[in-house]
Structures are given as structure tokens and as C-alpha cells.
């Protein structure tokens, strides 16, 4: 993606300048380093400590005689203990899993489709279309959620449109039924018997198979709506760096448009696809704002996420230890999904490529440049709400 030849800084020969440069280097980097150290690294260390204690949130977790180390009890409370907290965590994981499995493929496919469409040479009003598709990406998650709750109310705009199509829309945000259950129910089916016993993380097999609730579909549509523009831009950059000639050459060789796209263009877009999927996975596993805003709706139990549950445990249940444990489990889930995705995408033509290939800083810079751009854009937009860092 970086087209210019990188310029290399050459160290001046004179020793005194070299010392000055070294001091300046540390001086220049120190504000960012202090902020990252105090508000990013220190929190991780402190939270790790808290996750092993029974601190109740009062006073300080450090040098406090009332705080005892309880080992892995907080982790057990959300994974193996047979109690409400574990069941809530199981539900949050289940909900978020459905969210990830729907949002990531949909937003990636839609973004790619939009990018290919607005990249067509013959398209008129390219600028208008790009603006229209990107605009939702700059708005606030709070404003967008407010708008979507309005659009998806029982007698709202979405149901009005569905009524034109002779479809009787559901009362979206009040409907906790899983869509798989709804479909099975439509064919007269029901719970097959024995599937309602508490299963993994206290959630029954029947609930694991429920699919996203009708209410969660609203959040899913909203996530696709607000991120597809950002990812469209990343794909567009990729398409433009490939250039039209490649596809045209394939067409000359007798491939049809579809073959040329899937056999020539798409493989060349693989680095961008990789970036988009990684950012999508990281972002969707962190859904918080929308869940926080809909916590009072009738189907809220089908919308919770681990990120929201961590907040809730720390701030309303006075269980910062459990909150910290949830944060670390979430972190592990995100790492596991990113590695899995990396493994699946890299597996095909580069079997020898290790997960973290040894690369010089320069190549890391160009490979992760798209990630930096995407991260910055997503953090500026409505879905991936970053807390800086």
C-alpha cells in the first residue's frame, strides 16, 4: 500500500549530536510512553491482581488488609461454579458469539460489494455514493442507537416498509425469541427433549442453538450499517492499488467478469481482507455502547455481551474481581479468534508462514499500516468505541 520508497534516517557521525539525538528521542516519546504506561499497561497489571482477589470495590485494592487473594475463584465464578453469575456470563458469550458470526461476514461482504461498485470506472456520481455509504461511519453510536430504536419500534419505519411488502413485522426490541427457534416454531417444531438441561457455561443446548434474538437482529443490522463504509474505504484502497489493468487482462484472456473477480481480484485483495476480518472480529467481540443503551429494553437478556457484563459487575454488582476476570477471558477469546482467523486465511498458499513471521520494523510498518488506519477510523466511528490508548 505504501508506494513511496521509505527514507532512512541516517545517524550523524559526531558523537555529541548522537547523544543529543538519543536524549531527544526519549524526550519526544516520553509523553506517549507515560500515557500508555499509566493508562494501559498499569491497568492491565492492576486488573490482573484484582482478578485474583476478593476486593469489593471499597477503598484501594492495594495494601488493603481486607483484601484477600482467592486464587482463581473469580475465574471459576464465571466458568465452572453453578450459580447465576456463571449463567449470565454464558448468556453474554452466547449472545456475543451470534453477533460476531453474523456481523463479521455480513459487514465484510457488503463492504467488498460496495467498494467494487463505487470503484467502477463508468459509474456516475461516484462521490455521492461513497459519501452516502461512509457517512454513518462518522456518527456517534449513541445517536445511531437512538435513531435505530426509533426506526425499529413496533409501528416504526421498518415495519411500515415491511407492511408495503405484506409482511407483518415483529415488535423488534421486545422480542427475545431466537430466530432459529422462530423458524422451527413456524414449522410446528419445538424443543426436541433433553435439550433444555444446563449445558456449557450453564446455557442449555436449546439456547445455544437459538440463534440471535429478533431484538439482537436490530443491533446486528446497525453494526453492519455503521461499519460497512469504513471497510468499504479499506477495500477501495486495495482495489485502487491493484489497478483496473489486472482485471482487464483477465477479461482479455476470456474470463468473464465473475471469474476475473473471484480468481484474480479477490486473491490480490487478501491482505485487505485479512485486515478487515481482524478489525471486524476485534470490534464485534467488544460490543458495549449499544448493549448499554438497550439494557432497559424487554429483550435485554438476549443482548448482553461480556464487555457490558464486566462493566455491570464492576459498577452495579460491586464485584470488580469478577469484572476483571471477565475482561481477561474476553481478551483471550479475542486473541484466540484472531489467531484462528489468521491460521485459516494464511493456510492456503503459504503453508510455511508462521503465525508471527519475523519481519523488520519497516515491513511491519507497511503491513500494519492498514490496521492502523482502520483502527483509527473505527475508533472515531460508532461501532468500535475505543477508550484511546
Amino acid at each position, binding site marked *: 500500500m505504501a508506494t513511496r520508497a521509505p527514507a*532512512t534516517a541516517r545517524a550523524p557521525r559526531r558523537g555529541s549530536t548522537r547523544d543529543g539525538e538519543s536524549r531527544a528521542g526519549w524526550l519526544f516519546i516520553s509523553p*506517549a510512553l507515560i500515557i500508555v504506561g499509566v493508562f494501559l499497561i498499569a491497568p492491565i497489571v*492492576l486488573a490482573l491482581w484484582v482478578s485474583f482477589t476478593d476486593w469489593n470495590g471499597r477503598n484501594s485494592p492495594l495494601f488493603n488488609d481486607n483484601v484477600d487473594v482467592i486464587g482463581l475463584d473469580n475465574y471459576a465464578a464465571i466458568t465452572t461454579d453453578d450459580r447465576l453469575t456463571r449463567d449470565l456470563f454464558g448468556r453474554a458469550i452466547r449472545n456475543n458469539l451470534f453477533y460476531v458470526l453474523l456481523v463479521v461476514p455480513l459487514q465484510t461482504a457488503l463492504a467488498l460489494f460496495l467498494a467494487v461498485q463505487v470503484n467502477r470506472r463508468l459509474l456516475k456520481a461516484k462521490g455521492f455514493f461513497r459519501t452516502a455509504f461512509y457517512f454513518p461511519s462518522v456518527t456517534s453510536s449513541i445517536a445511531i442507537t437512538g*435513531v435505530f430504536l426509533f426506526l425499529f419500534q413496533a409501528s416504526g419505519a421498518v415495519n411500515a416498509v415491511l407492511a408495503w411488502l405484506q409482511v407483518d413485522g415483529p415488535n423488534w426490541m421486545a422480542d427475545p425469541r431466537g430466530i432459529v427457534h422462530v423458524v422451527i416454531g413456524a414449522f410446528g417444531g419445538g424443543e426436541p427433549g433433553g435439550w433444555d438441561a444446563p449445558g456449557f457455561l450453564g446455557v442449555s443446548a436449546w439456547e445455544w442453538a437459538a440463534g440471535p434474538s429478533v431484538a439482537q437482529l436490530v443491533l446486528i443490522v446497525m453494526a453492519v450499517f455503521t461499519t460497512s463504509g469504513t471497510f468499504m474505504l479499506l477495500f477501495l484502497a486495495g482495489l485502487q492499488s491493484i489497478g483496473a489493468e489486472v482485471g482487464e487482462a483477465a477479461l482479455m484472456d476470456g474470463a468473464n467478469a465473475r471469474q476475473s473477480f473471484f480468481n484474480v481480484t479477490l486473491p490480490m485483495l487478501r491482505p485487505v481482507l485479512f485486515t478487515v476480518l481482524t478489525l471486524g472480529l476485534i470490534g464485534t467481540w467488544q460490543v458495549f455502547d449499544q448493549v448499554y443503551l438497550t439494557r432497559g429494553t424487554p429483550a435485554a437478556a438476549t443482548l448482553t455481551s461480556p464487555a457490558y457484563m464486566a462493566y455491570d459487575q464492576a459498577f452495579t454488582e460491586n464485584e470488580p474481581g469478577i469484572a476483571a476476570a471477565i475482561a*481477561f477471558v474476553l481478551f483471550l477469546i479475542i486473541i484466540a479468534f484472531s489467531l484462528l482467523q489468521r491460521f485459516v486465511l494464511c493456510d492456503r498458499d503459504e503453508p510455511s508462514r508462521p503465525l508471527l513471521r519475523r519481519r523488520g520494523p519497516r515491513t511491519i510498518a507497511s503491513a500494519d499500516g492498514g490496521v492502523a488506519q482502520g483502527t483509527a477510523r473505527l475508533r472515531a466511528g*460508532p461501532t468500535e468505541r475505543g477508550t484511546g490508548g
Partner: protein
Amino acid sequence: MRQRLSAGLVAGYVVLVLLAVAYLYPFLISVASSFKTDGEAVAEPLSLIPQTPTFAAYERLFTGTDIGLWGVNSVFVTLCVTLGRVFFDSLAGYALSRLRFRGRSAMFGLFIGVMAVPTVVLMVPRFLVLKELALYDTYAGMIIPLLADAAGIFIMKQFFDSIPVSIEEAARIDGAGVFRTFWSVTLPMAAPALVTLTILSFQGSWNEFAHFVVSRQSPELNTLTTGVASLVSGQLGSGSQFPLKLAAAVLMTIPVALVFFVFQRRIMSTTEGGEKG
């Protein structure tokens, strides 16, 4: 160049136009509904023209809530965060790109690693640190943690990498110090990246929500995001009040929408760091 209108092209246009309508309609309907009465907003959910246009929702918003205060807080926090972030990210990006010092690659690795830490995971831990430092529920606690971000440092570093080093060397030979060279020679050449970073930082801090949920609790420190969130999530009671909520959503969207339309080409520039003007 006239092109034969093929069926495929027409179908492509139809799909794109429908999608564009689907992307823009939610915003148009929000603006329109904010000027409707509560009853009409619910009864006529699709109409873009209010039958009896009214400012009632906006009046209630300004008399019944502290939206003015929230706006002032948002402006203050956003200004501080944006200025600080652009400055500190540039400094760090410059050091990582240009200055030779022991530990530079380790620092670079650290910032890359930090970029990978999911930010929502940090919410509760960051609250713990803010409390330890007695910064909880203060402007400082809301602002300082956002003052530098790894992605921004990365964007600046990459841009500095693309600027020829020879120009700076000339300034150095003339006796300018490191900061002087950075400030008056290199930084002005990085203007495109600075504009990109400024816009992204502005949007990011204006729209920031999770951090303000965990770094403060006083109503006086509400920003537009946390304040409007309390409206949207129905803490106002009594009915749905959609025009009021939509009016708040519209008002808080105006600044980012303005910046978006003014800097549209820069924001949508697909080259990294906005290298091309």
C-alpha cells in the same frame, strides 16, 4: 464517451440507488421527526415532511435537560484531546521514524503490541487506575488517558518515513536543534497526515462514550454522549418521546457531520495518511 446502457449497468445503478436511500433515509427521517409532535412521529414514521412543524422537542431539550452543559463539556474535552493527541502522537511518531536512540525498536514493538489490546477490555481496569490516582470523576481523568493513541503514532511515523531526510539534514547543518527541526521543518511537511489525524481524533473524542462512562459519575461532567445516552436509554420516563431523543441525536451529529462534509475528500482519501492532496 457514450456507453451502451446494458441491463447489467442499469441493475447495478438500481441496487446502488436503493442502498444509498437505505443509508441516508435514517438520517433524513431523524431530522424530520425531530420537528414532529410525539404523536405524529409515531403515527407517520416514514414521512419526511412534518404536518405541523414544531420546535417543541428542541425547546423541551433545552429547558428539560442539561444539553447545553453537555455540549460545553464535549467541546472542552474534544479540544483538549484532539490538540494533545495530535501533538504527542507527532512527537512520538517523529522519534520512532527519525531519531536514533537505544531502545527505539523495543518502543516501536511496544506501541504495536498496545494497538492490539482491545480497548473495551481496558474499561474497568482503567477505572481502577483512575481511582488510585484520584483522577476519577475529574476532567483530567476524562482527558489524560485519551491524549495519545498507538494507531495515531503509527500513522505519523509512517508519514515521516515517507519524507526525504535530506531536507532536515540541511536544517541541522544550519545549527537548528532537534525540536526546532521537527517543529519548523518536518512537521509542516507532514500537514496532510496532521489533518487526517486531527479529523480522526476529533471524531474519536467527540463520539467517545465508554471511557466517559467509567471515568466520571457526576452529572456536571456529562458529555453529549453520556448525557444523550441517558435520554436514549429512557431515564427520562413518561412515554417514548422520540422527537426529543431524535433532536438530541441530530444536534450531537451536526459537528461531526460538518467536519465530514468540509473535509470529505481528506476523510475519504484512500491513500494512507492521506498522502495525496
